[in-house]
């Protein structure tokens, strides 16, 4: 066994020696050629004063062409400082100073203008049959609490966020640099801390209402009829109509995106580099401004846009006629449920009587 191994080793050694000898010969031949070529060149080329120490040196313009960030090695613990140049900051500046304010202004002012126009034309959507005087529970205490926790956080987050983009243009000239800086500092604290209950609210909303917010065939019909917003028809709807489902998904997806990108910015450079930070701010800014515009529509239809709508989130009890007009399928379902369950539940509470 050992003898066999030894012979094998010998043969492999031989072959490797042969190959290396071949390589050596090739190398020698190349060297000889290079030497000849060098001798053929004028003698001046070999003098030390013409040696160009930068012949192989890194050049800034070449590096900038090759990559968006020129990165090297540093000697201080802060790894971010090893980036020598990152000119992408200028693109981000263009976004932050030009693109984002325009997106925000168009989305928010456009939405406001559309709502004012709509109110002037359509007015408040009335309860056609008038109030019945009987109410039905639409949102329980937990649902209302989560809604208002998220909503109140959203309002503070929106105002303090808008302040970052528009404050220096609109508010700073009015109140002066010092007052504006103090307000902005507190707004930043509020923005950071209220993000936690807001995110919690978004998560609970996602879990609490997802069962009623999956798309269904009824939504198609509802959308075809324009949701009854335009015209006087009131297409049937379940507990949430297609418009409300859209608001739900805007809150869940938009809220999820602003929360994720917001935490990236609150914990800067924990998970991402400078390019990631810039991208996080871009996503945060765009989604947040569109979110604000969408919520303006939501606030409108929940208050002055529709008679009897606010009560759903106010007391939780809506008028039966309102419910029949806007959520006919849900009312049918609820009354079927109560018909089926009413006798035992009514009989049970007072066994002693």
């Amino acid at each position, binding site marked *: 066994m050992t003898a066999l191994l030894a012979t094998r080793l010998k043969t492999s050694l031989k072959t490797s020696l042969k190959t290396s000898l071949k390589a050596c010969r090739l190398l020698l031949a190349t060297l000889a050629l290079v030497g000849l070529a060098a001798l053929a060149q004028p003698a001046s080329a070999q003098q030390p004063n013409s040696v*160009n*120490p*930068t*012949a*192989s*040196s*890194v*050049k*800034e*313009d070449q*590096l*900038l062409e090759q990559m968006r960030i*020129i*990165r*090297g*090695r*540093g*000697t*201080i613990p*802060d790894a*971010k*400082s*090893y*980036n*020598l*140049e*990152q*000119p*992408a*900051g*200028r693109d*981000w*500046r263009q976004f*932050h*100073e030009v693109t984002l304010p325009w997106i925000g202004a168009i989305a928010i002012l456009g939405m406001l203008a559309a709502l004012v126009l709509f109110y002037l034309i359509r007015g408040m959507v009335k309860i056609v049959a008038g109030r019945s005087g009987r109410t039905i529970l639409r949102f329980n205490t937990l649902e209302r609490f989560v809604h208002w926790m998220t909503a109140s956080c959203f309002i503070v987050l929106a105002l303090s966020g808008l*302040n*970052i*983009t528009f*404050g*220096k243009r609109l508010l*700073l000239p009015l109140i002066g*640099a*010092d007052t*504006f*800086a103090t307000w*902005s*500092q507190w707004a*930043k604290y509020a923005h*950071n801390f209220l993000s936690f209950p807001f995110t919690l609210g978004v998560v609970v909303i996602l879990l609490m209402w997802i069962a009623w917010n999956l798309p269904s065939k009824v939504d198609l019909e509802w959308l075809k009829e324009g949701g009854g917003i335009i015209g006087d028809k009131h297409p049937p709807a379940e507990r949430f109509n297609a418009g409300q489902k859209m608001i739900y998904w805007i809150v869940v997806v938009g809220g999820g995106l602003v929360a994720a990108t917001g935490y990236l*910015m*609150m*914990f*800067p*450079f*924990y998970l991402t580099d*400078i390019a990631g*930070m*810039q991208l996080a*701010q871009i996503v945060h800014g765009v989604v947040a401004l569109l979110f604000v515009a969408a919520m303006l529509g939501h606030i409108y239809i929940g208050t002055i846009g529709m008679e009897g709508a606010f009560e759903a989130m106010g007391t939780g009890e809506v008028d039966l006629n309102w419910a029949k007009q806007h959520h006919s399928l849900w009312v049918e379902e609820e009354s079927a449920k109560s018909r089926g369950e009413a006798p035992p539940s009514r009989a049970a509470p007072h066994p002693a009587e």
Partner: protein
Amino acid sequence: MARMKFLCDADRCIECNACVTACKNEHEVPWGINRRRVVTINDGRPGERSISMACMHCTDAPCQAVCPVNCFYTTADAVVLHSKDLCIGCGYCFYACPFGAPQYPKVGNFGSRGKMDKCTYCAGGPEADNSKAEYDKYGSNRLAEGKLPLCAEMCSTKSLLAGDGDIIAQIYKERVVKRGYSSGAWGWQTAYRETIAS
């Protein structure tokens, strides 16, 4: 008035980091904050170059443009300074800066940032020149004393140049002509939208 600029001649920088140390000492810069640093490109490979980098005091500075509270101002010498009284530590100037110059002391919860700190070109801040308040917030104000930034003044190989842009560009040009090579005026195209022909 002069248009103050920095220029690091990468063919002269020996990565001694004395500029970094001098800056920290002159301004009593807090722990964890570096207004100036030396970055080595292609370390250990042929063509390696080291460049000392700090705030370049850009023309039309991006930090100044993106600041949500407008805490930056550009002096008559074209030095970009800021007010720590107005700064809210949002970190946006760092996202915009092409040179990674702004620094933030870590204060309080999460990754929350304190008042931004960066190279002042040894020119202090908005407070009265060479006052204690100015020194405490921004470090010494050598420019008000008629001196140039210490990092460049004490550079042993005179790799780092500070002063009027035209004058230091002239010095650099003469060097390049004399020695016959150059690896470029690092950061000038990005900061000043111009470069020194070589």
